[in-house]
C-alpha cells in the first residue's frame, strides 16, 4: 500500500514463505498418492520411501486385470449422470418458482437432506426398496443420489434466477406469456451458466457419495466409491494398485472442480457464502 519499508518487505517475504509451506502441506500427500501409483510394486513399499523412481503403468494394468475397475467406473458414470440429470429436471423449475414467488420454504425443506445424517434416510429407504425388490438396482441408486443433487441444483440456481431483472418477466407477461413459457423460453436460456455450474457440482457430489451405494448396490451395480473396500482389500497386498485406483477415482471431481472454481464456494455452501 504505502512505500515498502524494510520491515514491510521482510513481512511480505515471510508471508510468501509461509504460503508456499502451506501449499506444500496441502499438496504433498496428493502428489505422494499419484507418485506411488506410478511406482513398481517393490518401490511403493520401500522403506525408507523413494522419491526418485522410474515411472511405470504396471499398477494401472494390474488394476484393470485383477478388479472389474472399468465395470465399476461404468456404474459410477450411470448413477452420477442419471442422478445429475434428475436433479436438474426436478431442481431447475423449483428454483425458478422459488425465485419468482419468493416462497423458499419448499427449498428449505430440501436442506434437511443436507443436514440429517445419511443413515437416517438409508434405514427407511432400505425397508422401502426391499418391499418393491429394488435393492441393487440402478434406480435405487439414482433416486437416492438425486436427494443429494436436487438441493444443490435448487440452491445454486436460485441466485442465478434472482439476477434476471424483474422487468424481463413483467414484459413477457404483458405480452401474454404464461409462467411456464416464461420459464422455458426466457428464464432458462438466461441461466445457462448456472445450469452448467449446478450440473458440475451435482455431478461431483453424486460421484463422491459413499454411503447410499454402500448399502443399496450389489456386485453388479457397485459404484467406484462403494468398491473402494475391494480395492483396500486387494491393496493390502498391492499398494501401487490401491493408489492407482485412488488416483483414478479422484480425477473426475478434481478436473470438474477446477472448471467451476469461481462458483465453487457459493455452490458448496448452498449460497450461504457469496463466492
Amino acid at each position, binding site marked *: 500500500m504505502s512505500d515498502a519499508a524494510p520491515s514491510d518487505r521482510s513481512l511480505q517475504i515471510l508471508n510468501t514463505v509461509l504460503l508456499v509451506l502451506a501449499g506444500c502441506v496441502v499438496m504433498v500427500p496428493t502428489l505422494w498418492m499419484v507418485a506411488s501409483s506410478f511406482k513398481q510394486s517393490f518401490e511403493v513399499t520401500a522403506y525408507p520411501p523413494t522419491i526418485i523412481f522410474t515411472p511405470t503403468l504396471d499398477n494401472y494394468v494390474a488394476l484393470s486385470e485383477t478388479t472389474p475397475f472399468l465395470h465399476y467406473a461404468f456404474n459410477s458414470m450411470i448413477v452420477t449422470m442419471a442422478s445429475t440429470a434428475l436433479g436438474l429436471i426436478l431442481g431447475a423449475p*423449483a428454483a425458478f418458482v422459488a425465485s419468482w414467488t419468493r416462497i423458499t420454504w419448499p427449498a428449505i425443506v430440501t436442506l434437511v437432506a443436507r443436514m440429517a445424517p445419511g443413515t437416517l434416510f438409508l434405514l427407511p429407504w432400505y425397508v422401502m426398496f426391499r418391499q418393491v425388490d429394488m435393492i441393487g438396482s440402478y434406480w435405487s441408486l439414482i433416486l437416492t443420489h438425486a436427494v443429494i443433487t436436487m438441493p444443490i441444483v435448487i440452491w445454486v440456481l436460485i441466485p442465478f434466477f434472482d439476477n434476471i431483472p424483474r422487468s424481463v418477466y413483467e414484459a413477457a407477461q404483458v405480452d401474454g406469456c404464461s409462467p411456464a413459457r416464461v420459464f422455458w423460453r426466457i428464464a432458462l436460456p438466461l441461466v445457462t451458466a448456472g445450469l452448467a455450474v449446478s450440473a458440475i457440482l451435482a455431478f461431483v457430489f453424486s460421484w463422491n457419495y459413499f454411503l447410499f451405494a454402500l448399502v443399496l448396490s450389489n456386485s453388479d451395480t457397485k459404484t467406484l466409491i462403494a468398491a473402494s473396500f475391494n480395492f483396500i482389500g486387494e491393496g493390502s497386498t498391492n499398494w501401487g494398485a490401491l493408489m492407482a485406483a485412488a488416483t483414478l477415482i479422484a480425477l473426475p471431481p478434481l478436473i470438474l472442480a477446477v472448471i467451476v472454481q469461481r462458483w465453487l464456494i457459493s455452490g458448496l455452501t448452498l449460497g450461504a457464502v457469496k463466492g
Partner: protein
Amino acid sequence: MTTASNPRSASGAISPRLQLASLSAPSVIFTVAMIAFPFGYTIWLSLQTFTATGMTRFAGADNYVRMISDEQFWNGLTITFYLYFLSLVLQLVFGTVLALLMFRAKKLPGIVRSLFISPFMMPPVVAGMMWLVILDPSLGAANYILTSFGLPPSNWLASPAFVVPTLALIDTWQWSPYVALIVLGGLQALPPSVYEAAEIDGASGWQVLWRITLPLLLPTLATATILRSVDLLRFFDLIYITTQGGPANASTTLNIYGFRMGFEFFQLGYASSLMVTLSIIVLGAVIVLNRVRNAVAW
C-alpha cells in the same frame, strides 16, 4: 405475488398460480417421497421393535430407554463430540491463518486457488485410501519422516488413543482450505475504509488483526462453523473406509454406531432411534449456531 395474479392471464385456460405450482410439483412430490416421508418413517421405526418373524410391534419409547442405558451410545456420543471439537478448532485456526496469508499475498496466482480446492473436492473415501498408505505404522511415509527427525513413530489409525486425533488431522488437511476460501471471501468483503482509519490512528499490524479484522470476521467464521458442524457431527465416510469404528470402538461415532446397528445387526428400530437422536443434535447445533451468527452480525 402481484404478478402471479395478473388479471389478463387469469382469464386464460390455466391460471398462472396453478402453472407455477405445476412447475414445482415434481420437486415437491420427490421431496415428500424421498425426504419428508422417509424422515417421518424413521421416527415411526424408532418407536417400533422388530419381532423374530420380521413384523413390527409398537414399542413406545423402549428404543430410547435402551439408548440411555447403552454404554456404547454414550461412548459414541463422547467420540462424536471429541472428534467434532478437535477437528473444528483445528480447521478454523488453520483456515483463518491460511486465509490471512492468501489475503496479504501481493499477487496470488490462480493456480494456488486450484491447488487449495483439491483436498476437499476429492472424495473423502479417496482421502482415506491415501492416508491409510501414508500413515501405515510399519511402511508409511509419515513414520519415516517422524523417525528421521528423531521422533517416536506412531500407530496413527491403529492406535486407540491416537485414532480420533489422526482422523481430526486428516479432516483438517482436507477442509482447512475450504474454511480458508470462505474466510478469504469475508476478508475481501471488509470495507477498506476501516483499515485506512486504523492506519491513520497508527495502529500496529497485530492491533489491526485482533481489534478490527477478526471481530469483523466473526459472522464469516460463524458461517464456516455452521457449515463444518453439519459435516463433522455426521462424520462417516473417512472413518468407515479407514477404521470402521475401530480399533476397539475407539472411533465409533454415533453415526458409525447407528449405521452398524442398522446394517450389520439389522436392528432397524434401535438404529432409527440413534439416527433420530443424531439428527436432533445436528439440527439443534445449527439452530444455536445460527443464533450466534445473528448475534455477531454487523
